[in-house]
C-alpha cells in the first residue's frame, strides 16, 4: 500500500486556543479514509492545514512523497478538495467556474470537464449561473471541481451536506470508484457515522482536537461486537468466572465488578452459552443473568469513544 497523504505531529494554535493536538495519520492510495468527529472537533482545521489555507505551525505534511512546506506547488498538483461550503463565483455559470479551476491547474481539457460534469450529474444545469444553484448542486459542482485534474489525493470536507439521499449514494459510488478503481487516496470528513460506515475503508476519529484512533471499519465494529454477538453474564464472582471460562477456550472481557462479556459467533450461540452456564453453576458461582448484547453500530462506538455525545461542543 502506497501512502497518499501523511500527517506527522500536526498541532495548531489560533489566537490563544490550541485547536489541534499532535495529530498524525496516513491515508493510502486506493482507500476511502473517513475523518470522523463531532462539530468543532477540528476536522476543517486539519483539512485547511493540509491544503495550505492555514499555515503549518508544527509538524509535517507529505503529499505523495512531496513535502507540502517546501514544494507547495508540486504537492498541491496532487491534491483536489472542498473545504467547508462549496462557495463558487455566483455570477459565473457552473461551466465558467470549472474553467477557472481548469486554467489554474493546467492539463485539463474541455473533454475532461464535460466528463466530470457528467459524473456528478450536472450536465443539464451546468450553463446556469451558480447563484441559481441549490446547496446540493453546488456541492456537486464542488466535487466536480475537486477531481478535475485527476488528483492522487482527494480531500472532501463534509461533502454530503445538502445532498439528497440519491445524491449521497451517487457521491458514495463516485468516491468508491475513484479509490478502488483509479487508486485515488480519498479523505472524507463527516460528523455522520452512518454514512462513514457505508463509504469508508478506514476511519480516523477526532475529538477536541485530538486523534483518538484509526481503525478499519471492520476492526472498529468488531472491537465491540462486529460479526459476533456479545453475551453479557452477570455473576457473583467475576475473576473466578473468567478463570473457568479461559478453560473453555472462550475469550471473555471483564466489564465491571459483576459483569463480563463473551464474544460468540453470531447464530451459533446456543451451545457455548449453555456450556458456560453449566460450568459456572457447576463451580458454585451465582449466575444472575445471561443476555445477548444488541449489535453495536459504529455510531455507538463513535459516541462511546469520543464521549461527547451528550456534552457541549468543544
Amino acid at each position, binding site marked *: 500500500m502506497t501512502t497518499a497523504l501523511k500527517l506527522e505531529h500536526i498541532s495548531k494554535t*489560533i489566537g490563544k486556543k490550541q485547536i489541534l493536538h499532535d495529530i498524525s495519520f496516513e491515508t493510502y492510495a486506493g482507500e476511502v479514509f473517513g475523518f470522523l468527529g463531532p462539530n468543532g472537533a477540528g476536522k476543517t482545521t486539519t483539512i*485547511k492545514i493540509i*491544503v*495550505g*489555507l*492555514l*499555515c503549518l505551525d508544527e509538524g509535517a505534511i507529505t503529499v505523495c512523497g512531496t513535502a507540502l512546506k517546501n514544494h*507547495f*506547488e*508540486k*504537492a*498541491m*498538483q496532487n*491534491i*483536489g*478538495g472542498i*473545504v*467547508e*461550503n*462549496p*462557495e*463558487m*463565483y*455566483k*455570477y*459565473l455559470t457552473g461551466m*465558467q467556474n470549472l*474553467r*477557472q*479551476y481548469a*486554467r*489554474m*491547474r*493546467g492539463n485539463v481539457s474541455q473533454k475532461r470537464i464535460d466528463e466530470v460534469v457528467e459524473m456528478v450529474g450536472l450536465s443539464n444545469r451546468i450553463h446556469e449561473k451558480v447563484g441559481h444553484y441549490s446547496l446540493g448542486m453546488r456541492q456537486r459542482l*464542488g466535487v466536480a*471541481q475537486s477531481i478535475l485534474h485527476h488528483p492522487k489525493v482527494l480531500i472532501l470536507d463534509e461533502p454530503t451536506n445538502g445532498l439528497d439521499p440519491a445524491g449521497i449514494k451517487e457521491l458514495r459510488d463516485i468516491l468508491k470508484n475513484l479509490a478502488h478503481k483509479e487508486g485515488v487516496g480519498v479523505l472524507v470528513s463527516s460528523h455522520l457515522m452512518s454514512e462513514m460506515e457505508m463509504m469508508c475503508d478506514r476511519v480516523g476519529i477526532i475529538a477536541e482536537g485530538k486523534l483518538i484512533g484509526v481503525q478499519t471499519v471492520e476492526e472498529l465494529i468488531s472491537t465491540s461486537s462486529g460479526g459476533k454477538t456479545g453475551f453479557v453474564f452477570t455473576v457473583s464472582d467475576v475473576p473466578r468466572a473468567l478463570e473457568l471460562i479461559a478453560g473453555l477456550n472462550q475469550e471473555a472481557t471483564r466489564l465491571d465488578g459483576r459483569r463480563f462479556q463473551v464474544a460468540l459467533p453470531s447464530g451459533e450461540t446456543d451451545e457455548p452459552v449453555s456450556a458456560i452456564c453449566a460450568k459456572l453453576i457447576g463451580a458454585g458461582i451465582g449466575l444472575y443473568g445471561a443476555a445477548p448484547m444488541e449489535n453495536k453500530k459504529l455510531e455507538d462506538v463513535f459516541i462511546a469513544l469520543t464521549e461527547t455525545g451528550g456534552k457541549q461542543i468543544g
Partner: protein
Amino acid sequence: MGKFFKLVQNEYIKILNRISTWIILGLVVLAALGLCLVSVLVKNEMNRNNDTYSQSTYTDGMYDSEIAYQKDSKPEGYEQMIEALEFLRDNKIPYADWRYAAANDMAQVKTQLASASASGLDDATVKALTKTAQDYKNAILAKDWKAYYQIKIDVIQEDASLSKEEKEMQEWQYQYRLGHDLKPGSDWKSNLITETATLKAQVASMRKEQESGTAQDMEKLNQNVDKIQANLYRIEHNIRLDIASAGLTHPQGTLGFWDVFSTSSKMISVISLLIIVIAGSCVASEFSSGTIKFLLINPVKRGKILFSKYVMVVSFAYLMLLFFFILNALFCMMFYGTGDLGIPYLSVAGGTVHSTPGFAYIAGKYLLASVDILVMATLAFAISSLIRSSALAIGVGAFAMLGGNTLILILKQALNLDWARYLIFANTNLSSIMDGSSLFAHQSVQFALIVVAVHMFVFLLTAWDGFVRREV
C-alpha cells in the same frame, strides 16, 4: 509564463462578468459623450458673446456714440479724431479692417501736425507730416494695405530716436507681411503675427534690461524665444492651431476638435474611479464570497495569485485609458469633424522646432495622468488585501483621489507646511510638476517619481505581506 497568463485571464473573466463593471463602463462612455455635449453649449455661449471690436462688417451708426463722446469730452486731438471717425463712417469701414487702424494713424499724424504748427516747427517737418497724412488717406482710399505698411516702415526708419535694433524690431511685422504677402485681417495668421511682434518686443526689452544689469527671469525669456520660433513655424507651415494651449476655457478661434479632445485628458479621474472600484474589490470580494478557499486550493503560490490580480488591475487601467482615448477621439470627430486631425504639436528644443502628431501629444498627457490612477489603484489594492473589506478599500481609494489635492492645498496654502511636498498627493500630478505649476517651488519630476516609486513599493509590499501570510 503561460500559466501566469491564464491566471490573469481568470481575473479578467471574473471582472468582465460582473454587472458593476459594466455599469461603471457605461458611466465612462457617458462622461466622454457629456464632455462633447458641454463643449457644444460652451461654443454657443461664446458665439453669443462675440467681441464687438472684432466686428468685421460695417453697420450704420456704429461710430455715432464714439463721435458723440469725442465731441462731448474733447480730449487732446479730438478734432482730428472726429474727422477720422467721420471718414471711417463715410467709407463704411468696420473695426476689424486694417483701414480702421490706418485712419487712427492718420488722425495721430494730424494731431502731431496741429501741435507742431502751434509750437512753430520747421517747414520741412511740417511738409513731411502733411505728406504722411495724405499718404495714409490715399492708401485707405485705394484699399492698398501694402502701401499702408510701407508708410509705417518709412515712419519707423525716419524716427531718429530709435536705434537700429529697435527699428528692426518695430518694423518686423510689416516687413514680414510684405515679404510673405500676408494681407492684414482678423484671421489666425494675422493674430499670430501680432502676438509674435509683442513677444519680440518683450524679448528685446528683457535683453536690454539684462545688459544694463537687472536680473531677468531666464525661463520666461527662453519660453518667449521658443514661442516666437514655434509661431513662425506655424505661419510658414500653415498650422492653424497650437494644440498645447488648446482647451475648452481658452479656445483659439471657434471651439474645435483639439480644444475638446485635449480637455478630455483632464477627465481621467472618471477612469480612476472605475479602477479603484476594481482594485479595491478584486481581493476583498474573494474573502467576502468565500471563493478564496477555492482560489487558494490550487497548485499556485499565493504570491502569484496576488500578482495576477495586480497585473489585471494595471493592464485594465491602461486598456480603459486607451478606450477612453479612442472614445473621446470618436465623439470629438462626430461633433467637430475630421478637418483638424492632421494638426501637429510643436515643441522647440535647442533652437529647432519639432513637430509631433497631435494624437501622440494628447496620448502623452493621458499617460502622465495615468500615474495618479496607478497610485490610487495600488493604494486601494493594498487596503483590499490587508483588511479584506471592499467597501473600506474603495472608500479610502476614492477619498484619496478626490481629497488628496485638497489636503495638499490646506497644508501648503493655509498652514504653509513645506514638508507636504513629500506626501504622495503632492507628487502624482506629473504634468503640472513638469510645466512648473506645482504648489511647491522647485518640485522636480525626478523627485516626484522617486516619491511615487517609494509609495508604490510600500503599498505593494503591504498587499503582498497581508495576502501571503493570511490564515484563511
